[in-house]
């Protein structure tokens, strides 16, 4: 997993609540067997006027020159709801995003992001509103996020956020969750030994 310590980048606002994973990466792009190449199709239906992705929609923020190279996304409530597709954080990361700031996230998306080095930051609806105002007044403003200090700095605004300490540790160090769990094989085996037959049975 890609480490996240301190990041500064252009923030792009998407002023909608309930941006679901079908919008982030539509299903026609899920027909792949690897994790790469999804960034090109991020927000496909909003970003392009045609299916072949040759005509960018000039109205969509990601296509505006002031947000070129954006790496921080700012949105409203319940970001990433809907389908469990991990292709959503893969697409956001593939495009170049390192963090998403919103008042709330859907649970599965939130977990998927943390597992991929994409930092989902929850701030209060009022704080997010303040950020939207700054980004509207000064498009192209950069945001600095420190996972070390758990802070977000935008223009003159300063916020702090929370993250589960273990998740934070893994992200700061870029740790692989499977290797960490495999250090506990013994506990898992002990647990399995105590299981009732009806549960342990499976498909055998």
């Amino acid at each position, binding site marked *: 997993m890609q480490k996240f310590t301190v990041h500064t980048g252009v923030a792009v606002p998407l002023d*909608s609540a309930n941006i679901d994973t079908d919008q982030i990466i539509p299903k026609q792009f899920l027909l792949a067997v690897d994790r790469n190449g999804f960034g090109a199709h991020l927000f496909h239906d909003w970003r392009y006027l045609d299916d072949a992705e040759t005509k960018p929609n000039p109205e969509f923020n990601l296509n505006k020159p002031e947000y070129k190279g954006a790496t921080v996304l700012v949105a409203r409530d319940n970001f990433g*709801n809907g389908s469990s597709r991990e292709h959503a954080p893969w697409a956001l990361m593939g495009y170049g995003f390192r963090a998403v700031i919103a008042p709330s*996230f859907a649970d599965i998306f939130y977990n998927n992001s943390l597992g991929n080095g994409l930092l989902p930051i929850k701030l209060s609806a009022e704080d997010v509103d303040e950020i939207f105002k700054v980004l509207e007044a000064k498009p192209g403003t950069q945001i600095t996020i420190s996972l070390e200090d758990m802070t977000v700095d935008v223009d003159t605004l300063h916020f702090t956020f929370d993250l589960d300490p273990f998740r934070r540790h893994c992200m700061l160090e870029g740790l692989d969750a499977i290797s960490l769990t495999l250090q*506990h094989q013994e506990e898992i085996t002990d647990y399995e030994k105590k299981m*009732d037959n009806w549960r342990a049975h499976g498909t055998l």
Partner: protein
Amino acid sequence: MGKTLYQKVYDSHVVFQQEGELPTLYIDRQLVHEVTSPQAFAGIEAAGRKLRRPDLHLATMDHDISTKEQTIEACSPMAQEQIKALMSNTKKFGVKFFGFGEDNQGVVHIIGPQTGFTLPGTTLVCGDSHTATHGAFGALAFGIGTSEVEHVMATQTLKQGRLKTMKIECTGSLQKGVFAKDLILAIIAKLTTAGGTGYAVEFCGQAVRELTMEGRMTLSNMAIEFGAKAGMIAPDETTFEYLKGRMYSPKGEDFDKAVEYWKTLKSDDDAVFDKVVTIDAGSLEPFVTWGTNPGQGAPITAKVPSESDFSDPIVAKSCKDALDYIALKSGDPLIGTPVDYVFIGSCTNGRIEDFREAAKILKGHKIAKNIQLAIAVPGSGLVKRQAEAEGLDKIFIEAGFEWRQPGCSMCLAMNDDKAPVGVRVASTSNRNFVGRQGKGSRTHLMSPATAAACAIKGALADVREFI
């Protein structure tokens, strides 16, 4: 203090917890399908790992297969690649796989229960958000991403924090023409699409007790649509009866022992929930969605809302955006809105009971002339065979429906079952998101019986007219 059903299942699965970390839970079952597994299998292989417990995995394909013909050739070239990957991966890693033509090929969330792979008191995951379905059995079941799929494959565990608990008590008995689907759409409308975020929900009350397992699965299936990770129902005689004798259900003494334990899986009288919601299920009417998220629903007899009905500016904007997209006018009655396509199927409503209820309405009727396409897509080979044995396929076909092969189909339109731009679909699926059933398509979610009524009328209709 007593425990809730969720807490009982959660606590019994904690394998270990390190200081300052989330608990690691044992995962009893994982369902695998073609779309969210290839990258997980590839990760396992690249790291030189194997599946810790291949026997606790079950695989089939559903998301992107053709429903016209049960062959790999009938699928798109990209889908073929995913199906072939699933076939070779399950073979390589020793995972049980159900292929075309088998009773147990179909929508994963229908296959788990019908094989008895899904059991009360277990933890069950799948790389699909509608895994909440299995909560109907009193399992702690939730959708996960592909990295987590790989984690379960390698370790049979997942780190999971404790969720808050919510009780949704559904009082009274559902009236004629009102089904589990109407109940869950009413619940989502009340709670909004994010109302359950961070919660494990337990559905209870008379209306839930009176549901069959099929109905309960419809209810749990859509828990995710109001943001709840899990939607559980305490197992009872209905559950045990359903499971007895199924392929992977415990047998003989093991079954009796299991039932004895399963009977303890209910929230204690003195358990405290973080939130309690009561729904007067007995007074509900058939429900349909009018917008572009599952929370934007109303009784079929209602009028299309207007943005001024909502005080929260963000909700009001969502309403306006939704009405623009779905092309409905505030103040117009929902009933009578012309419909172009009808889709009956999906993990929400692709079970035998769903086709029985729709067939009851369709019998002796024809679909309206303006309906361009009406498809009935059984959720599994077994559902299809059973429906055909009961003659339901003939009722659908005589009414003008196409009787298809099992798969997810137009619920997410990853195969060629798509609705074109501007087409309005009466759909028994679970999501009415923008473009979900095809770019520019307009979805109205509803029960199978209501979908059948809409097919006959060629418009949004009140199914109670046909009862």
